[in-house]
């Protein structure tokens, strides 16, 4: 009834906010950032187009080491999150019924309504030299002096895993719930054991959830600033920190824009690759 070829006035009015939003706040800023990243400062207020800012990234080991380190630690975080979250999601989706299931699921979600800052602060209270864990270990006789557990790579991973957990649990529970119990029973009837049923039936079925969970967790870890800074301290060497430093501390926006673009490319590649791998589209995964 409303499907006419020429858009009506109403449609054009409805499109206006969308277009303003997408063009003024998303597309133009990113185009502008790209243009800035390919302009080289040759003298004060004199610029030339070129890729020197990107060249600088590859020439300076600190930069690409930080970049690679951030990517590798984000991959590691993603794997750890998946390994911890899968049994929990399976338990909620398949082992529980009714009210208990709903309660545990909501309990999984609740911590993530609280600001990331508060959650990270909690870990700082637990892990610092005068913190709860250190005091507990001394009390239990497992340590004879205070232990500083902040400012290590492991702490950063602990914080990132914690902060990303929700984004893994929700897609996993959703896909696992859609698996009919009778398939699992059939697997056992046909002589499978727990391990083969898991490998041949459950995991293939949960693959879309696993992939979308991993994509989101990876992306969020890569772009995280708060957790690496607070838990990793000055030596955390997270790439977002480099971007922040170029923009705010050194006021070298051209270099910062190039860094930002590199991070955006890596993040987009992972999202795109993950979607291709699982034969999904962005619309299906998000909508």
């Amino acid at each position, binding site marked *: 009834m409303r499907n006419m070829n020429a858009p009506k006035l109403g449609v054009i009015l409805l499109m206006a906010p969308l277009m303003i939003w997408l063009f003024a706040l998303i597309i133009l800023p990113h185009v502008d950032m790209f243009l800035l990243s390919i302009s080289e400062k040759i003298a004060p207020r004199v610029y030339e187009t070129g890729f020197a800012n990107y060249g600088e990234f590859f020439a300076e080991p600190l930069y690409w080491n930080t970049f690679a380190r951030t990517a590798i630690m984000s991959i590691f975080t993603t794997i750890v999150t998946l390994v911890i979250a899968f*049994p929990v999601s*399976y338990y909620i989706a398949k082992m529980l019924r009714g009210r208990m299931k709903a309660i545990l699921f909501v309990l999984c979600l609740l911590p993530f309504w609280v600001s990331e800052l508060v959650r990270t602060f909690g870990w700082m209270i637990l892990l610092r030299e005068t913190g709860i864990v250190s005091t507990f270990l001394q009390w239990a006789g497992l340590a004879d002096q205070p232990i500083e557990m902040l400012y290590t790579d492991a702490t950063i991973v602990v914080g990132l895993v914690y902060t990303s957990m929700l984004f893994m649990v929700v897609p996993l529970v959703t896909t696992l719930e859609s698996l009919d119990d009778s398939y699992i029973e059939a697997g056992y009837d046909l002589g499978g054991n727990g391990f083969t049923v898991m490998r041949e039936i459950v995991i293939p079925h949960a693959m879309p959830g696993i992939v979308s969970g991993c994509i989101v967790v990876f992306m969020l870890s890569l772009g995280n600033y708060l957790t690496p800074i607070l838990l990793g301290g000055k030596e955390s060497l997270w790439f977002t920190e480099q971007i922040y430093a170029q923009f705010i501390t050194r006021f070298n926006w051209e270099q910062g824009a190039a860094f930002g673009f590199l991070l955006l490319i890596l993040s987009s590649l992972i*999202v795109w690759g993950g979607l291709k791998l699982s034969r999904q589209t962005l619309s299906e995964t998000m909508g």
Partner: protein
Amino acid sequence: MIPSIPQSRAFKGVYAAYISVFFVYLLIPLLVVAVFAFNDSMFPSLPWKGFTFDWFFSSTEPKLGIFHDSTIMEGIGVSLFVAFWVTVLSVFVGTCNAFLFERNNFPFKNFFYVLMLLPLVIPGIILGISMLVFSNTFVNGVENVFNVEMEFLRPGLVLVIMGQFSFITTISTLVISARLRKFDISLEEAALNLGASHLTAVRTITLPYLKPALFGAGIVAFLMSFENFNTTLMLVGSDAPLTITMFDRLKEGSTPALNAVSLLLMVVSAILAIGSIFLQREKGQK
């Protein structure tokens, strides 16, 4: 491994223990933050020096309670202001988008739908710097051509609101679209048959139906804005929202005052979260 398949007792025990440990892990950081808000000490750590409400209500240094701490109170005020505008704008644009994508066809619809989703997969810090760069180009351009200084587009609250709005709108669009998709279009057609104008039909039939989703999207938008850090960090000017104030304090070293603010945030978030879950449940039943 489902209840209808017999499992050894040991396996079940280990599995249940793992789940318990997981929930302890999930809740313990929040629990310690809450508990140490009441520690009568200068540091949020052991030893426990007794129970106090000073970190909330005391009006004297050194244990200045948060309700008397002007920087924290201003931070809360700034955050509320930002979150209010982000919520209003993103729910409005989200509703327009939902009607646009669910009810209309137009050229390149799929392309724009994917474009609409993109802000969710762009890291927050990148959204922040791209907007910082673009607003700077824009303001300088206007200044050079028209000789007008657009001071409000320099880093500050307007940019913070725009930065947060740019990705929260995607979320509100998705929430509102999901409910609009379930709406039975014949109800609206009945109103039209009974002589209502198109606008009246939408206002009296469709929008009331969408109300739970509008509130739900509003709550989510409000919380995401209030808690946002990455995008805000790059765009903030002299008025700092609460998350930025807290971050600065945290870097200097923390007092239980931070625990007190955190506890306040947790309580408010929990109320809003439960409210939104309640709204969604109501939505599911209809």
